[in-house]
């Protein structure tokens, strides 16, 4: 299958700060890939290199078969890619429709203005000035400008930051719809539920390098990790009285096991025989957030740059 994006050994420094040390990953055509990582992990720098806004110091990058560092193919690349970035802005005195129509005139085969307005949920706002829009509406306009050129590949930098819950669901729906039409999407997000909900694969960056890559359900060994059973320790019993090995957590005891069914059976039988209740009994698989925190705190070398590279 063809790769929409191929990156190997990417490096970029700002002065003495090595923002990107060794980043490599691929995005297949038609895939949604989420780039995760704490602030300063190198996500924005990586994106900006792929978008052609920054030159790389070393490594290989190919986007839609073109080198984003090559100025001569820049126009073709911009024709075929769409961008929704956080630090983009538009003229405040134009209306929503004018802003989108203006951008549409720059592309060879754009979507229609009306189609994009409906798609991002700005119907009814066409005649409002950009400066009068709310923060969430401006982000929708950003999304509209990213989509107007009917791009094969879409870069989304924290696309739903500042959205309320309903608006976020709407945006996810748009993104899924775009994928079903064959658009490839590379997105960054701090919202792990978003990565879980949208991404076919996630790439986790920490301190300028890739520390994990895989499906959201499997990344960081999530699929093989132990489940956690927790409940309040019944009055009059100690941890050693329990039929399975356990440890004390905050306000509860925690049992970690790879055989959840067996452990639950033993625990509930034990409680039932004694006529006691296991208050607050819950079973958790490690979440993407657990895996992510584990990866990004463990993977970061001491003294890693604690700064955003925006």
């Amino acid at each position, binding site marked *: 299958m063809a790769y929409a994006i191929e990156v190997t050994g990417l490096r970029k420094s*700002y002065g003495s700060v090595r923002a990107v040390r060794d980043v490599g990953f691929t995005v297949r055509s038609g895939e949604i890939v989420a780039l995760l990582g704490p602030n300063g992990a190198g996500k924005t720098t990586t994106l900006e290199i792929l978008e052609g806004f920054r030159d790389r110091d070393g490594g290989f990058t190919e986007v839609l078969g073109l080198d984003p560092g090559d100025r001569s193919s820049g126009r073709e690349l*911009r024709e075929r890619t769409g961008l929704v970035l956080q630090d983009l802005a538009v*003229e405040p005195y134009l209306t929503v429709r004018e802003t989108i129509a203006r951008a549409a*005139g*720059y*592309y*060879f085969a754009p*979507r*229609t203005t009306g189609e994009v307005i409906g798609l991002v949920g700005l119907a009814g706002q066409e005649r409002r000035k950009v400066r009068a829009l709310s923060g969430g509406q401006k982000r929708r306009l950003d999304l509209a400008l990213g989509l107007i050129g009917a791009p094969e590949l879409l870069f989304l930098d924290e696309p739903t930051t500042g959205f309320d819950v309903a608006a976020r669901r709407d945006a996810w*729906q748009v993104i899924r719809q775009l994928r079903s039409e064959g658009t490839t999407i590379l997105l960054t997000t701090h919202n792990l539920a978003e990565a879980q909900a949208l991404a076919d694969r996630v790439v986790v960056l920490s301190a300028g390098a890739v520390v994990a890559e895989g499906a959201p359900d499997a990344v960081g060994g999530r699929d093989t990790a132990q489940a956690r059973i927790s409940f309040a320790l019944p009055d009059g019993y100690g941890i050693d009285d329990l039929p399975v090995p356990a440890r004390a957590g905050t306000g509860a005891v925690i049992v970690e096991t790879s055989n959840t069914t067996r452990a639950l059976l033993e625990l509930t039988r034990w409680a039932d025989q004694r006529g006691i209740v296991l208050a607050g009994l819950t079973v958790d698989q490690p979440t993407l957030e657990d895996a992510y925190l584990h990866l990004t705190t463990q993977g970061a070398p001491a003294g890693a740059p604690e700064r955003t590279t925006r």
Partner: protein
Amino acid sequence: MMTATLTGPPARPGRRHRGPGLLAHQIWYEQLSFWRNPQSAIFTFVFPVVFVTVIGALLGGGGRSSYFGGLSALQYYVPTIAALSVLGSCYGQLTVALALRRQNGILKRVRATPLPAWAYFAGLLAHCVLVSFVDVALIGAVGRLYGVPFPSNWFAIGVTLLLAAACFCGLGVGVASVIRNADAAPAVAQLVLFPLLFISGTYMPIHSQLLNRVAGWLPVRPFNEALLGPLALHEGPDWKHLAVVAAWGCAGTVVGVWRFRWTPRSE
């Protein structure tokens, strides 16, 4: 709310404007942005008109004098204030607008589209030239009220304004390219311009041989001189002085092409 459906991969190729069409598209939206912003429109047009009105009220009655090089006061001031308005709407407007647009990400957004750089700048240039023409027409009209006859050599005025406006746009882009901080842009632009206006005789005639010689090699005084003939004395284009202006315009453009940045400074 998001009920619209995609109509599939677009089968509408060839919608993009090309060449002149793209330019017209760009000019139209530049015009819209400008006229919708009350501050920029008012400041650009009201300032020179107020200036020439006040000067006219103060000095309008005077005849020709040697202080003004054998001209009447208004014959002297109509061209210099016209030049000032062109400086403001080209050099002044571009330095500030470009630095601001870069800082808040508007230029980055433009750069993210396939719009060629030449079309973006040509759109800006056409806009600045248009504003310059309106400005000069307004100043000429006020001057007429104070008895300065309307110019007769329209070709000379057109050529002079077009060339000078392009050159001061080039200088504006050049200066905008080296300004790092948009907050400082108006101050930097004025810091460069203000002393230059003074020694170039914009506000009062300069009778120092030395100053005139120095200012003669800088961009403003040659422009004043080039406007004086067509605007106040019914003369043809002043190619000698326009050549100096053109040289500065080229220098500014070269700096602009070499140093221009589309993205906000990140560090």
